[in-house]
């Protein structure tokens, strides 16, 4: 239990952790109520819809959590805008060419062609990729979902073909999001040998300095430079 020991710093605020929990909850319920609609011809989908109590209730649940997710998305946007005035830990999710270099460097490292792992900042390229995939996915799912929800209104201004097109995009993006979560998020946040069974940072909100040094060394430097690190204690042996 080496991970638990040692001083730690805050990685996610309580508001961010609540956001993550709302996202987790709505994502799963949306998938659970949406996929059986996409695959309505299959037995499992019909049984699942039966469990929910029919297609109308399934759709009601789906739309309720869609609204919750959209509200959360708007809150997130406001929170990001508000954080722009902060002195540290701003723009942590900004994408740059550096991320591409990091990815290539990391691939070289993983295949043994580089001895050193790239020095990641607060969020590495994997986490940034996932973050922006969620942003893109949520915007697209909200837009296509609303088009399907209010087809009569939408077709006062837009050609009708956007409705069946939205339906295809909504289903395709859903599948993409599901694969991304199952492969990418589950691996990086749960199944990576170093963190299995899960990365606790998102739930405790804290990350040990030791992990920070290994996985996000530039973040450690930034915090040190800003004088935000807790006093370092001499390393103690685990009990």
């Amino acid at each position, binding site marked *: 239990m080496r991970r638990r020991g040692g001083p730690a710093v805050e990685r996610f605020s309580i508001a961010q952790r609540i956001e993550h929990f709302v996202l987790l909850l709505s994502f799963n319920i949306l998938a659970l109520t949406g996929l059986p609609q996409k695959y309505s011809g299959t037995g499992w989908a019909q049984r699942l819809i039966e469990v929910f109590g*029919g297609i109308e209730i399934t759709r009601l649940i789906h739309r309720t959590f869609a609204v919750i997710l959209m509200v959360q998305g708007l809150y997130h946007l406001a929170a990001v805008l508000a954080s722009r005035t902060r002195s540290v830990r701003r723009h942590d999710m900004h994408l740059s060419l550096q991320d591409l270099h990091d990815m290539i460097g990391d691939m070289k*490292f993983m295949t*043994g062609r580089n001895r050193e792992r790239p020095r990641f900042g607060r969020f590495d390229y994997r986490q940034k990729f996932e973050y922006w995939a969620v942003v893109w996915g949520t915007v697209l799912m909200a837009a296509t979902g609303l088009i399907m929800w209010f087809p009569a209104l939408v*077709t006062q201004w837009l050609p009708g073909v956007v409705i069946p097109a939205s339906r295809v*995009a909504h289903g395709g*993006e859903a599948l993409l999001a599901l*694969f991304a979560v199952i*492969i990418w998020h589950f691996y990086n946040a749960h199944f990576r040998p170093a963190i299995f069974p899960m990365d606790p940072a998102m739930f405790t909100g804290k990350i040990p300095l030791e992990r920070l040094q290994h996985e996000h060394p530039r973040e450690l430097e930034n915090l040190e430079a800003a004088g935000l690190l807790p006093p370092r204690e001499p390393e103690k042996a685990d009990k």
Partner: protein
Amino acid sequence: MYWLILLAVAWILGFPQASLAQDNAACLGCHEVEGTKISFPDGALDVTINAKKFAASVHKDFTCTTCHTNHTGYPHPPRTATSRRAYQVLAQQICATCHADQAQIFDLSVHGRGVRMGLGDVPLCASCHTAHAVIKPKSAAFRNNIPEVCGNCHADEAVMTRYGLRPVYQAYVEEFHGVTTRLYRLVTPAIRSPSAVCYDCHTAHTVRRVADPLSPVAPGNLVATCRTCHTKAGRFFATAWTEHRAPSLRHSTLVYLVQVFYLILIPGVVAVLVILTGMDMWHWAVTRWGGRA
């Protein structure tokens, strides 16, 4: 001896009816036997009656002779129809005795015209309503099953090609209306699907060719027909219509392009993620066991 028994059976079956139940029971004595058939040059007609289904039908209180007026005895009067189809077409007149209004408007429909032209595939009353298991058309069981009823023919490529039509059933069941109706039929069969089924747009007994300007789904009438349910449908609403066909470069182009986009994007993204994940596991395995191996 044998003919004596036959004669006895015939006498019993032809006995003047004392009550409804007795009358029907006499007929069912033969007609309930599985596989009772009339043979015609163009195929046999199954005349087995499922008594349970009949008892659940809207006509349950009728005697057999209410409709089959000349079948009061056995042997039955000689048949005038020389083919199975002709027999079924004649049987429509039985329905028309009471349902004259429906019979009259059906006659004007594209199906009714087909019947008069002698086309063998065209539906008759019983093709959709059944002959002896007729249930209320307003019932959930009937409404939710409409796509399957129409699909009996409109899913059949061979039949449709004969009339220059496309099979549309498969495309419908994959559309929003079709998905909803199928889920009602399979999951909540006692509730009527509020989603459009075939006859909501095409009408039931007055169905016309789509190209017929009087058809409610003719291009000029389409948005008005949509508005019978989608009362506030915008002016471009009807262009959402994908014509019961799979999207292609020529039809519903945008829908097709979105399909292709995800067909490429999903495997592409999955491949990248699997490769990166695999590399990380590889690195971990090499670090852990590399030295010893």
